């Protein structure tokens, strides 16, 4: 098993890529997919940390992260569907009317 440093680096890269997607893309669904990539980075990181310390706490955290991801996906998709019904587009920028 490669040592945790590699996993932490990999997690950081995945997190950064996901963040790029969330900030730069305008399609609501792709934005949410990007947040899920960030989750992947985090899951890898917590498991790696947990291996670093020789414990399984990180695995449990990973499972809770999965729960959070499922919750997020459910609510996010509900919102996306609602927003799509209103404006017939998935463009996040079409909802910028309220931004100052």
């Amino acid at each position, binding site marked *: 098993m490669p040592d945790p440093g590699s996993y932490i680096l990999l997690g950081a890269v995945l997190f950064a890529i996901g963040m*790029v997607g969330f900030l730069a893309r305008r399609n609501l669904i792709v934005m949410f997919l990007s947040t899920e990539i960030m989750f992947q980075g985090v899951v890898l990181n917590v498991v790696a940390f947990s291996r670093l310390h020789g*414990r399984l706490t990180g695995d449990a955290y990973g499972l809770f992260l999965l729960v959070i991801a499922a919750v997020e996906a459910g609510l996010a998709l509900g919102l996306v569907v609602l927003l799509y019904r209103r404006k017939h587009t998935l463009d996040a920028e079409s909802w910028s009317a309220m931004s100052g």
Partner: protein
Amino acid sequence: MIPYILYVLFALGGAAIYLAMPKPSGSQRRAALVLGVGVIAGLLALMSMHFVAPNSNNFFFYMFAGLAILAAGRVVTHPVPTYSAVYFALVILCVAVLLVIQRAEFLAVALIIIYAGAILVTYAFVIMLAQQSGAVSTDTRAREPLMAILVSFVIAGAIAGKIEQIDAVPVKMTAQVPQAVTDVPIETTLPATEMESGHTKAIGEIMFGPYLVVVELSGILLLIAMVGAIAISRKQVPIEDTGEPKLPVGQIGREVPPF
């Protein structure tokens, strides 16, 4: 030394993503691919030189780590949302393999079942339902890509700057782990023999031991989310009036006897 190499690599990687970002003028996909693969190769080479002791699992680690980064880059840069979803499935599979390499089989399989089996399929469902005809500006024009890349990779760089301080030698999974290594007050360290008997069992003992309250809380969270999602999306939108005379509800149509 390592952090500076990493900063350079991240800068180059950011450039690759910038090149691959969907732009109205068309993205320089080939250049981005070459640059991206180069950056990934550099990153993996760096990892192999600095972090990893030679091991039979390393090949799989490098393969799937590289694939995961490549696929993740494709998720955020592909102009077609369906492809983004497919590449995301690839990311999930790669991460699952990486988890298996870390001996977290249960987590890996749970990841596949929940993400690939449920979440992503739901995404695919919505993508298909809300499918626009042809390419739309939503997908072909990124929003401030330069700033986004800058912010994200600065954060990644901040993590990378500290990476050298992580102990290069992994702590063996034994009962003799000194308590000082971890600040977690609850005793969750498991001896290596129990790890051998199965990740599932060990993780179950943790989940339903010290973390029982959290498990219950996440159950409540899921319930709330379900109620919330149903409340959000059940709303019925009235159809536009077509101008045709409407019969009151209950009187629509003609009654016809069965058969």
